[in-house]
Every structure is written in structure tokens, then in C-alpha cells.
């Protein structure tokens, strides 16, 4: 993720009905737009779900994406959040190899980054880490030398800045 400004966040409120995610994802595929990341969950109002997309604005005209999404009957609201106008976070769960040799080094790293240890045994440590997407990228790089066993990132979620 070289240029962070390339990645814009689109927040959509959709009806919480079967098949709606397929409609939205299908639209991206069919119009040739790539979704960088995607996070979906019901909102505080159960009728609606909130889908947060990250899209690469250098590869797709954002305006068309938004307009086409708006045409979907089940899409109730769309908001574009440029990086400068929102707070965004992403969560990562990751299991890293941790044998006795470099375990200390790893524990220091975890401390420095303020990641949480969720579980550990003599061979592995499972961590949770939440921050901006770019920080996740950096942390991931730092973990790689230890050996990543398995990892899941949630994709970016965002809220507009307080006004």
C-alpha cells in the first residue's frame, strides 16, 4: 500500500436482507472495479447493515462506483470518506512462531507496538492488533521474520471526523 491517498473509503448503508452483499460485490466485479478491502456488519438499527469498502481510486473512477452503487435498490445511503476526513481502523489477528530462541525479541516487539497477546504456548503466540491500515502493514512486516503461521485482517472500518 504505497500511496495511502490512493485508497478511499466508501461507507454504504444497505438493507439487511439475503443477497444484498452479492449484489454489491457483483456490481464491483461486473464494472471492473477492484475492492481492496470490505467489512460488513449490521448497524445499531437491525434493518440495515453497514458495508465499508476500501477502493483504489487510481484504478477506478470513484464517482462511477458510487453512482452505480446508488442504483442498487437495497443501497440506502452512500458516503465517501477521503483519508483526510475520517478516522479509520483495522484489526488483525495473527499467530506467530515463537520458539525459545527469539521469543524474547518477539515479546519486546509486541510491547513496543502495543499488541495484545490472546493466547500462547511454547511454540506460538496469537496476537491481536488494531490500528490504521498502514500501521498494520508495518507491523506485519516486523512479524514476518519470526514466521507468520496464520493471519486474518478485517479490512478497514471508518467513521467521519467529529465536526
Amino acid at each position, binding site marked *: 500500500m504505497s500511496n495511502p491517498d490512493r485508497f478511499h473509503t466508501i461507507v454504504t448503508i444497505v438493507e439487511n436482507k439475503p443477497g444484498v452483499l452479492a*449484489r454489491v460485490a457483483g456490481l464491483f466485479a461486473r464494472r471492473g472495479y477492484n475492492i481492496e478491502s470490505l467489512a460488513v456488519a449490521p448497524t445499531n438499527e437491525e*434493518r440495515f447493515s453497514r458495508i465499508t469498502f476500501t477502493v483504489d481510486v487510481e484504478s477506478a473512477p470513484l464517482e*462511477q462506483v458510487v*453512482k452505480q452503487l*446508488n442504483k*442498487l*435498490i437495497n443501497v440506502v445511503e452512500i458516503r465517501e470518506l477521503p483519508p483526510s476526513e475520517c478516522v479509520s481502523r483495522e484489526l488483525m489477528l495473527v499467530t506467530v512462531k515463537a520458539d525459545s530462541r527469539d521469543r524474547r525479541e518477539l515479546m519486546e516487539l509486541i510491547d513496543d507496538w502495543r499488541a495484545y497477546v490472546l493466547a500462547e504456548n511454547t511454540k506460538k503466540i496469537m496476537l491481536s492488533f488494531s490500528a490504521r491500515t498502514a500501521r498494520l502493514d508495518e507491523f506485519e512486516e516486523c512479524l514476518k521474520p519470526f514466521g507468520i503461521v496464520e493471519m486474518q485482517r478485517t479490512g478497514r472500518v471508518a467513521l467521519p471526523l467529529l465536526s
Partner: protein
Amino acid sequence: MSDKLRMSGGEALIKALERAHVEVMFGLPGGAILPVYDPIIDSSIRHILVRHEQGAGHMAEGYAHATGRPGVAMVTSGPAATNIVTPLCDAFLDSVPMVCITGQVPLAAIGTDAFQECDTTGITMAVTKHNFLVTEAQDIPRTIRAAFHIATTGRPGPVLVDIPKDIVDPVNPRSVMTWYEATDADMDLPGYHPLTQGDPELIRAAAQLIQTAQRPVLYVGGGILKSRAAEALLELAEMLQIPVVTTLMARGAFPDSHQLCLGMPGMHGNYTAVMAMQESDLLISLGARFDDRVTGKLDGFAPEAKIIHVDIDPAELGKVRKVDVGIQGDCRLVIEDLCAALRELGGAVTPEARRAWRSTLSGWQEKFPLVYEQSEPGHKLKPQYVLEELRDNNPDDTILASGVGQHQMYASQYWRFNHPYTWINSGGLGTMGFSIPAAIGAKVGKPDRRVWAVDGDGCFQMTAQELVTASVENVPIKVALLNNSYLGMVRQWQEMFYDERFSEVYLSENIPDYVKWSEAMGCVGIRVESPEEVAPAITKANAINDRPVVIEFRTDPRENVFPMVPAGKTNSELLVDPSQEHLRR
């Protein structure tokens, strides 16, 4: 209507269709939809039994094109649903209001690969404006209301409603429902609010641009017909004295006989219409979408033109070509407001420069009319001649439905369209086989009007079986079949762009025997081979009103459609008829 009425979902479905003012539907029954076919017997709705579900879809489209009311098709699950995918896509691309009901396997069987199960909503997601899978009988009235609402408002389009068998089958307890009259509030469409009124400030900005333009052109698309804006357009054009081009989807939206009408632009448009857009300094696009068949190579399209773009679908504004003023709104309402704004600005002004523009245009019209060479005695008929005779031997308000290919282009070029809703064709998808079922749908919707289908021999062989439907259901359409024994349009491309290497385009001159085939389907069949037989055959066909008529015209396979903008070229590289080539510098 306050008394509680219990009924089955199937009865409710038919009742909901009646409440939606459906007078006719086109379809073919089968296992999953069977329970809905039973209440049809007692319904006021006329059902037309087709011979292939594709026919049902195109008939619904033809009906919608001709009447402005949504067309309705009903078919069963699985193969029937897949058979109607092509018309759904056709209606989607040409913004045709249509509601399609499909049967589905019972809810409990969904996802088990049951007999005749297919994921109909999944398959049609990309080719419908919206689709529904109904899971409760009680939801049927509100879903049908929502389906018609979505199909007919905003940018019109096809809506599919998939109905599992158990919720309509009276032997199944799941089908029991209490009837209610669905209201708008019942539809529950929190994400659907089409805007129709244009922004007054943008309309004022458009009016100002128009006042100062020197070479303006009104670029009119199918949206004018969808918004019933033909009258408003006439007022605007006459007030401004600005020339009009009508795209393939908009033929008839502005009368061809009008002195301001330049006819059809695009790949096979006439020279003046193409060049007027190309040289224009202001394109006023009304319900058109800058299709690649109109713009040619986009980089070189109308390089000096500013763009005013009016469309009900905001996604069209600026999708293809950057706009200077983009107005979201219903064409009719926006044109009316635009006329008012222009009047406020002191009415139409006619800059001196516009006179030069008008004389440039009429110069082109004189220099580059549509031309073809009449055939030598004993040679094959010219398709253009057949179209001219057809035009001259039929009243102005005849409805013409076309297939896809060379004959479609000749029809659009040589017919004179003077009334809206007299031209029905497959523009966006270019669906071979469209004309016969579409003509049947149009005739069902407008039984007092004469309806001709113009078809090619390739197209005819794709959907001709619907002539059986026409005969049996007593829908006396007429078919002008231009038999050039080729997939002519493809042949033309191979001749021009593939060094005359003809690959898989020859059909056959004598097989099938179109006259016998037509007769076997209950029609009158007539074969015409020489120019002097053309008009008498048309007259004869026009006198027959108790059954369909097919005239097979044997036409010249070597004839090509001109003018032509080769694919990938700019409109300035338009090829005129070879006989006019020396007139281009």
C-alpha cells in the same frame, strides 16, 4: 376492501397483477409455476401462450415499447427462467419497463439442486433493475406493487419476481395468506427515491450555454420516449430552431419530416447527422447515453462540443463523456423547465453564426443523401428499395419492429418516422430474433394499429415459431423478411475488414422454404423476387387481417449498409456510399 379475504398465494399473485392494471401477459406454464396458472382461468387478464420463453420476454418488451405500460411475462423455473434471460438483458439495456414472474422450486428445496432448480435471482442480478425472491405468501401483494413501481419509475427497466412453488400452491399450508391492498408504504424501499425534477440552477446554466452556442445540436435518445417528452421536445426545438438527431432508440421521438430533423447519427447514421454532432460546439443530450455506436472512437468524438446532458439516471451523466452541465431529471420535466428558463432569458436568440451552421447542414444534406443503386432487371432486389416501398405503402402511424442486422439499419434509415412509439427495436443488446415476438407484443397492445416486423433470414430462424403463437392467438402481424441468404451484417464486416474472407456467414438461399414454413405456421406466405412485385405484395398483405402474413423478399446479398463508421474509428472517418466517395476531399 376491508373484509379479510383468505386465499392462496397463487390467487393473490393473479389478483395483485389485476390490481396493477395488467391486461395481458405472455408466458408458458410448467411444474413450479403451475399453481399460478390455475387462477388465470378465472382472471380478467388475457394470457398469451408462447412457443418459447424468449418469445414471452420480447413480446412483453414490444408491448411496453408500443403502449408505454409495463410488459408482463410469466414462466416456470429452471430452463424457462434461463430462456428468458436474453429478453431481460435486452430490456435492461434499452430501459424497457417489464415485470417477469418466474416459478421456483419450493423453499425447502432451494439449494439442493432440485429438479428444474436454478439460481434465477443470482443469474438475473446483472440483467435486471432489481429482482425479488419471495419467501412468504403474505409478501406477494407488496412485492408485486414494488416490482411495478421499480420497473416503471426512474430509469425504467426489467424487474423479476421469483416465486417458490410452496407459497402459491393451495395444497401447501405455506400458501395461505390474507389478502390486502398493498400501498406505497407496504413496498418498503428505503433505498429507492428516483428524482424527476431538474435542478433549476443547472437548467438556467444550460439555457445560458444554449443562448451563446453557434453550432448546437439536440442529441435525442430513447429517454425522450420513456419520459413521454416528444411534444416538449418539439416545442424546445422549434423555439430554438436547433437541429435534432434521433438515435436508433429515439427514431420517431422527433418527426423525420420536420425541417429541423437530421435523422439518425452513429455507426450507420446519415452523413449530416454524424457530421453535425462531430462539428458541433454544443451537444444538448436528452435521454441519450453516448453509446459507442453513436460516438465512434471516443477520443475523436465531437472534439469542440460542450455538453449539456439530461438524464434521469445520474450514473449516465459524465459516464462516457465529461459534461459541462449535467442535469439529473425526467426529460419531459427538464425540457419544460428549460423552455421556461429560455423564455425568461428573453426567448431564443439566433446568433448570426447559426445561419452559417444551418446552411452548412443543408449543404451536407444535399451533397450526401442516403443513396443506393436500383437493381438491374433480372437481378436480386435491393433491400433499401423494399423498405422504401414498405414505407410508401403504409400509413404514417404503422408500427415497425425490427430484428438485428443490415435490415435493421435499412429500416431505420429508409422508413420515415413521424410519430413516437412507431419504432421498436433492440438497440443496446442487438438481439437477433427480437422482431417477430416484439411485433406480436406491440400488436397485442395496439390492436387497431398496423404492425410490420422487418426481419432478416438469420433472425427469422431464431424466433419464427412465435408466428404460431400469432396465428393461434389471432394477432395478425405482418412480416417483411429480407432474405439475403446471409448473416448479412457479419458478412459485411468480413468483406470490409477481413479481406473478403467469408467465414460461417452463408445461410442458404432456398432452405428453409420460408413460404411453406409460414403457411405451416398458419400464416399467408408470399415470395417476391422482382421490383415490380414488391408494392402489389405489400398491398396484398395489408388487405389480410385474419392471420399473420410473411413476405419473403429475395434481396441482394452483396449489398452493404452505408454510411459506416468502422469500429474503432472516429466519426470523422465515416465511409460514405462508394458512389459518393469522390465528393469527400
